[in-house]
């Protein structure tokens, strides 16, 4: 069912979204990627989907009327937005704590001890990412979510040749931050 048909089901008057025929296609292609990137930041499947939903709603507002959902710019935008909103979510202590109360591991079932160790480590990684400069965290999360160098470059608006340098520096910085967090 197309987007317009879905929206017509409800009683509400629909806005620009209903006129954006390409948005559903765009959503279906990009949503899994956005969830994957967001998960790399927040380390929680539910929160990652929350972030991805926010990103896609923001994208719908930003690109509706431009009929630009097929362009690389929109895809690049949602990928970087996933990192930024994910980091914002991580930094929001209150929300994070709330989510932690109902966190469910996205990985395989583990023993309570393993879960405890995993959560500790995940927390350290989250905190370390949050302390990195934004562009460093972004390049790390985009690359390690599986994007190619060309895709990372497109998303961040930099030359492909710069991605390696940015990634190299970011990886070294992350290791230092994690080590610092472990010592603290």
């Amino acid at each position, binding site marked *: 069912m197309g*987007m317009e048909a879905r*929206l017509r089901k*409800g009683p*509400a*008057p*629909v806005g620009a979204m209903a006129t954006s025929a390409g948005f559903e296609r765009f*959503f279906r292609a990009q*949503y*899994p990627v956005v*969830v*994957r990137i967001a*998960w790399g930041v927040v380390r929680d499947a539910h929160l990652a*989907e929350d972030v*991805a*939903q*926010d*990103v*896609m*709603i*923001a*994208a*719908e*507002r*930003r*690109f509706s*009327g*431009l009929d630009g959902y097929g362009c*690389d*710019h929109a895809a*690049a*935008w949602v990928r*970087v*937005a996933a990192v*930024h*909103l994910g980091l*914002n979510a991580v930094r929001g202590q209150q929300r994070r704590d709330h989510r932690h109360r109902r966190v469910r591991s*996205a*990985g395989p079932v583990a023993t309570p001890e393993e879960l405890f160790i995993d959560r500790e480590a995940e927390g350290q*990684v989250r905190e370390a990412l949050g302390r990195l*400069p*934004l*562009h460093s965290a972004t390049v*790390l*999360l985009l690359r*390690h979510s599986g994007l190619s*160098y060309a895709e990372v*470059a497109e998303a*961040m*608006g*930099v030359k492909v040749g*710069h*991605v*390696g*340098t940015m*990634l190299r*520096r970011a*990886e070294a910085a*992350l*290791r230092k931050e*994690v080590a610092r967090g472990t010592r603290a």
Partner: protein
Amino acid sequence: MGHVREGTLRRMVDEPLAVPDASAGHLDGCVRCQVRHERVVEDAAATRRLLVRPRPVPDVDRAWDHLVERIQQAELAGHPAGEKVARAAHGRRRRWRVMGATVSGGAAVAVAGVVVVGAAAAATLTTVFAPTHVVPVPVGQGDLRAFTAALGLDGLGFHHGSSPAGAGPSNGGTSASGGTSATGGTSASGTRSWTYGTIQWGTPPQPLRTDSLGAAEAAAGFDLSLPGTLPSGVSGPPQFMVERAATLSVTFGANAGAALDGSTLTVTAGPAVMARYGGTGSLGDLPTLAVLTMERPTATSTGATVGELESFVLSQPGVPKDLAQDIRALGDLQTALPVPIPPGASETSVTIAGSPGVLLTEAGGVASGAIWEDHHGVVRTVAGLLDQEDVLGVARQLG
């Protein structure tokens, strides 16, 4: 060849076929680079262990239904979904995407200057000035000079890193104090008596020039994205020039009339970042493209209304009549950002990503520029040694 760059060593880990053969060959025979490469491999592996985990696979159908439901609910409530999120989505403060266009550096600086001057002029006229769109205003060669002279502002000379002390109106007493900017530049501020009251200013430190995107973003306080593909004849990476925010306050005295007496008008402009690109081939380092991104200027007033400020400024003897008429014709000065059109330049009104913009071409047709304010309150300028179509084509990618 020299040693292999760190970025290339890193790419060898993930995409070895994308690395030039010369680099791979050098690595084979260079012990020093091999040691560096080992460190790079070790950091990459450690990071992978930290970041890579089994990932959730979302149910896209369910997610789609949920999204539609959220948007419907938000629209029912009269609060379009994503308004706030859109601002947060691209940065801690705000994320602005900057794509490239092509321009000569000189022309770009000129166009940027025009925007800033226009913004300042407009800001002087408003009570709460938060422009949402640009409007062209033809300006004669002497108009701006006459305009500032009529208000006794021409001698103030708010230059970078210098106070206007000693350069202002003859009836002014001046005090100035210095400070140090975060980047080590000098920041000056001061107070000056003026014919119509008192002016206080904070002069920003020298603009930062850097080729580092990170340094430019840090200095500006917002993130920038740069184009992945540049127009033909333009080469990157760009050089950045970052102008910090500047603030000017005017407290009107009795000479300004009863309506303005005691009111304070505070104008804030910037920060702004210009990304400047060089040329290719024989053009070498010749600047060919510039993209200016700046936060829209704003002004607040503690008392006087927009109409009172406008009447005061435009009624001063010496303000060019045609310019005054054009400014009056702008209508709501709170939301219009005047863009001065220099003599000889042709101007066309255009729509860029749904926002009204002005497309300028200099008299000889060599350079063009586009200025508009996007839906997020970001004033953008794309200018270069390009024809109108090229400039517009790039501008429309920026949104």
